[in-house]
């Protein structure tokens, strides 16, 4: 200003002497004000020039600068991956919306006094380190985007927002009546970004079937991989674009969420299957071979015979879907076994053979390297080991079906008319076929021979010789044709990722000689997968109809509307209904009279077929044992197929087969009542006791004690007395049951009451238990 006035002075001086007519009084300002005005005009001109120069000199650069500051790059709006539910709507996999917490330092530093309350709120609600936050905001005042916490749940976010709301309201109240204005929490300085996180609420349940997703949201294994495109939606986008030279337009394209799968699985049945095979494997760990579980693999498939729907598909070992690479949930023994199989050698102390030369020279240094490489190798092996778990045993591993395959041979014979129900086969313990040098002898498992057998008996006794004789009648051509019809050698095309191809693992016209035909008749020499066998067996017991096995019955969209119903797909009729009836009859025979007696659950009539196969190409003797069961016998509804790969039981070979039967029995005992299939058979005393133990005894059945309970799981031995069943309530405070007669506590575990002798049987329901108590007078007598 002073400079300006100096100028004005200089200019004004020249015009000073001009006479001023306008001055009314003695004040003469006219000249000077003209001068000042001129200067103002000059300054205006100068400013216009200045503006023009900025435009001319820096116009293009600034234009670019302005555009580059705009966010016309696009922002992705993530889609939500569809859920997977079981047939009853129980959620097996779903994507939760989670949030990333973003701190905008730029906004916060703009209103500096709001930093402190905002930082405190973040500290309070998310446990973020206040000092770190303060430091970050102070040091990065220009940062607009920094993720401070990931995967915040909706509840946490709402809690924070409520906190902010309450706090700011309080401050508003306070500020109204106060001279000192206290700062509020800066709402704009902190915001949340959407994200989705895949979670599997049931952890390990149906892990092999469901599969998991990678960090970038791609499905791996199982349904997640097979239905990846169905489950995936498409990302939305928010983007800006330049309309013409420099106008900016923003558009939002919303995300399309993925579709939901309704699986054919029943999570209860699935859970039962998994529990039973887990029990088996843990029980038989270390039994035959040290350091191994009950088997290398155990698989169970439960199928609905009339639709091809898979109700359960379980295998052991398992993994946690929420953390697929984590081996720690498995028993330690199994972990080390898996590591060993993955090529792990604990060679920390040994010289590493590959690096021997280096080791000689620099031993000290290499010890460190060794330690490092040890960790690396361990990690690599752990990865390899966990990868081996992800494969679904039921569809991705082949084995020789063993005697279960005999069922199919018999069905072929009956259906083609080459074998008849009333045929009699004589088993002398072995069969020699071929002539001269090609003569081959194959023994029956019973080396002393089974003697004369009807077709049914051949199945019941699982006689190899009888089956080979049948095979000779059927002939190679017919055998192969039927095998193809049963889908052996072909994929079932079940809707799961990773189904194995077995076309090279069965014989064809060129590769099948007489020996191959002979071994094939009793299920050796060719390979199958579990799902192939189970699906084919369904067709034998449902009237001869082969349904394509499937895992998903419905696809729903984001709003729950049906996009697609997946109907049962009938592919062909493989055998006639009459043959099917005969096969059911034979199957019943196996369980009633033959090798599968152990498989019958108490109170039910079922049918099935056992299987024992020697594992080929292993050098030593290993077995794959199995049991294929169907229930109920008169009108088969479900098929339960259990396969134990390399059982680690004390008894090997055929004797191990009973464990497959036992698993089947255990499973059926649980799931048949659940499926509303009623008991048809009389219960023996033993069975009653067993059911009672399980809490599965039908409600209307009277409880009777028995003395013969020789098995370990049997009920306490007691004299029969007049007893009644009453409901007992457990005191929620003490956990003791209360005697309804005198209100005193009873120990629900031992059944030891304070004043009476009684047997208490805990019901699995928990809070009410069935109890048999001696009548009061009896108890008194005893005390006396």
């Amino acid at each position: 200003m002073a400079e300006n006035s100096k100028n004005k002075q200089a200019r004004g001086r020249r015009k000073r002497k001009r006479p001023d007519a306008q001055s009314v009084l003695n004040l003469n300002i006219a000249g000077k004000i003209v001068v000042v005005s001129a200067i103002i005009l000059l300054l205006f001109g100068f400013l216009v020039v200045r503006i023009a120069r900025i435009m001319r000199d820096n116009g293009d650069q600034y234009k670019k600068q302005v555009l580059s500051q705009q966010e016309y790059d696009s922002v992705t709006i993530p889609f939500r991956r569809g859920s997977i539910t079981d047939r009853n709507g129980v959620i097996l996999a779903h994507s939760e919306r989670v949030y990333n917490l973003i701190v905008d330092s730029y906004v916060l530093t703009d209103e500096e006094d709001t930093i402190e309350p905002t930082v405190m709120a973040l500290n309070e609600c998310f446990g973020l380190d206040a000092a770190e936050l303060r430091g970050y905001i102070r040091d990065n005042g220009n940062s607009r985007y920094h993720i401070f916490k990931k995967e915040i749940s909706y509840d946490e976010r709402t809690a924070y927002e409520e906190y902010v709301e309450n706090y700011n309201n309080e401050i508003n109240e306070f500020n109204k009546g106060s001279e000192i204005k206290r700062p509020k929490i800066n709402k704009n300085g902190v915001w949340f970004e959407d994200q989705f996180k895949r979670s599997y609420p049931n952890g390990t349940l149906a892990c092999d079937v469901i599969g998991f997703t990678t960090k970038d949201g791609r499905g791996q294994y199982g349904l997640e991989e097979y239905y990846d495109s169905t489950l995936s939606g498409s990302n939305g986008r928010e983007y800006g674009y330049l309309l013409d030279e420099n106008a900016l337009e923003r558009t939002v394209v919303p995300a399309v969420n993925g579709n939901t799968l309704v699986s054919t699985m029943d999570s209860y049945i699935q859970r039962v299957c998994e529990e039973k095979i887990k029990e088996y494997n843990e029980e038989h760990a270390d039994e035959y071979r040290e350091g191994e579980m009950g088997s290398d693999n155990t698989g169970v498939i439960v199928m609905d015979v009339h639709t091809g729907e898979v109700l359960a598909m379980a295998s052991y070992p398992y993994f946690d879907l929420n953390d697929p690479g984590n081996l720690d949930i498995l028993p330690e023994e199994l972990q080390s076994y898996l590591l060993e199989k993955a090529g792990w050698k604990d060679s920390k102390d040994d010289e590493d053979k590959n690096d021997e030369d280096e080791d000689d020279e620099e031993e000290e240094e290499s010890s460190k390297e060794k330690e490092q490489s040890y960790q690396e190798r361990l990690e690599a092996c752990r990865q390899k080991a966990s990868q081996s778990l992800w494969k679904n045993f039921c569809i991705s591993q082949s084995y020789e079906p063993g005697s279960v395959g005999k069922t199919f041979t018999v069905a072929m014979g009956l259906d083609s008319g080459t074998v008849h129900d009333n045929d009699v086969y004589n088993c002398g313990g072995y069969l020699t076929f071929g002539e001269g040098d090609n003569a081959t002898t194959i023994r029956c498992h019973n080396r002393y021979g089974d003697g004369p057998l009807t077709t049914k008996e051949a199945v019941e006794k699982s006689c190899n010789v009888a089956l080979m004789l049948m095979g000779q009648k059927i002939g190679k051509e017919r055998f192969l044709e039927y095998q193809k019809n049963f889908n052996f050698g072909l994929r079932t095309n079940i809707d799961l990722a990773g189904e194995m191809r077995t076309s090279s693992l069965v014989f064809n016209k060129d590769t099948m000689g007489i020996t191959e035909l002979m071994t094939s008749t009793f299920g050796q020499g060719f390979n199958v997968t579990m799902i192939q066998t189970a699906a084919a067996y369904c067709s034998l017991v449902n009237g001869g109809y082969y349904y394509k096995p499937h895992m998903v019955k419905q696809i729903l969209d984001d709003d729950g509307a049906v996009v697609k119903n997946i109907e049962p797909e009938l592919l062909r009729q493989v055998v006639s209904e009459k043959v099917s009836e005969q096969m059911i009859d034979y199957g019943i025979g196996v369980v009633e009279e033959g090798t599968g007696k152990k498989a019958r659950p108490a109170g039910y009539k079922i049918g099935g077929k056992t299987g024992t196969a020697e594992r080929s190409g292993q050098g030593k003797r290993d077995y794959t044992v199995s049991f294929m069961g169907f229930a109920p016998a008169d009108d088969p509804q479900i098929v339960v197929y259990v396969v134990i790969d390399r059982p680690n039981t004390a008894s090997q070979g055929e004797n191990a087969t009973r464990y497959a039967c036992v698993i089947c029995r255990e499973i059926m005992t649980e799931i048949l009542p659940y499926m509303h299939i009623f008991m048809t058979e009389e219960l023996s005393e033993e069975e009653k006791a067993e059911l009672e133990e399980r809490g599965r005894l039908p409600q209307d059945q009277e409880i009777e004690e028995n003395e013969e309970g020789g098995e370990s799981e049997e009920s306490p031995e007691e004299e029969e007395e007049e007893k009644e069943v009453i409901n007992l309530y457990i005191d929620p405070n003490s956990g003791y049951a209360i005697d309804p007669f005198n209100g005193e506590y009873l120990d629900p575990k031992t059944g030891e009451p304070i004043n009476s002798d009684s047997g208490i049987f805990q019901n699995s329901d928990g809070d009410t238990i069935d109890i048999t108590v001696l009548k009061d007078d009896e108890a008194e007598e005893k005390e006396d």
Partner: protein
Amino acid sequence: MSNEKRTRGGFDYQLFFVTLLLMILGIVMIYSTSTYRAGEDPYSFVKRQVLAEILGSIALFTIYFIPYSWLKFMGRAPLRYIVLGVSLGLLLLLLVPALSHTAYGATRWLNLGFFNLQPAEVVKIAVIFFVAGYISEKPERVNTLKGYLTCLAVVLFCGLMVYSISTNLSSALIIMGIGVIMLFLSCNDWKIHLLVAGIGAVGVYLFVNWIINSSMDVNNVDYHFKRIMVWHDPSAYVLDGGYQTLQALYAIGSGGITGKGIGKSVQKLSAIPEVHNDMIFSVVCEELGLVGAVVVLILFVLLLARCMMITLKAKDNFGKLLCAGVMMHIAIQVILNIAVVTNTLPNTGVSLPFISYGGSSATFLLAELGLVMKVAKE
């Protein structure tokens, strides 16, 4: 155009319409710049501005219709001191926290419930009144060093008060500028002018030089000193306030000759802080280009020219000085604002008369124009 007619007391339509045009342009630009950040009601800023302008118009016409003698009376000895005293009193009220309102790190507003008053604006009009009264009472006394310095001292004191209480350097400079120029117009003794100018020039030169050359840490220097350093090199001090200046330059630069079209500014969206306020001219440049900027400046030239004419035609010294003071006020503010926006001067926070958003400024400028029109009428 007959000057006789006007001096005889016609309503000054030229002045009125030019002002009206400027205000309409101002409202359009405020709407354009403020909607994006106005929140729920896109017109909230516009509404408040229109309200302030209506209030200012009421003041304008009130002044226009009250007898001229009353105005002259207020310029007399006891009353002008009271006027000045009252305005300074309002300024002092800022020190009472309950009555004051703080924004952008400075306490410049008195909270009157429905309206935030900027006492500095009151002081400006009071100083114009005071100097006009002081000089016109005995015009010859400013030719003496004592009289001149007395008046100058009062002006400088008011300026310092504004600066120290409301930390508003720009208003302080404007007040001093108005006072000094009014004295310059009135005083015929060139020795005094030379003396004052010399001391002032040397002082300013030394001050600026010291700031620029000092190697002081930018974080430790005073708010205004910082701005001077930023002005010297805005891109080097982006984080310390250079950002606003730089973004304003980007806006001006990207406008081109004809601009991007009204409402199409990109910079107003978020880049420029206080864009509807001090920096509104940068968006005028961006949206309307060089053409728009020149049009705005021509409007101001017309306004100022009209004021000059009225000053020249005014019957008495009091009227002349009053008009001259108002004219200087507007001129200084326009020049300062545009100079700041174009980074010709350091960022001081001056609003552009009639165009920038700001209730107090609009109201009091209209009141001042009321004085001018009153003088024109006489």
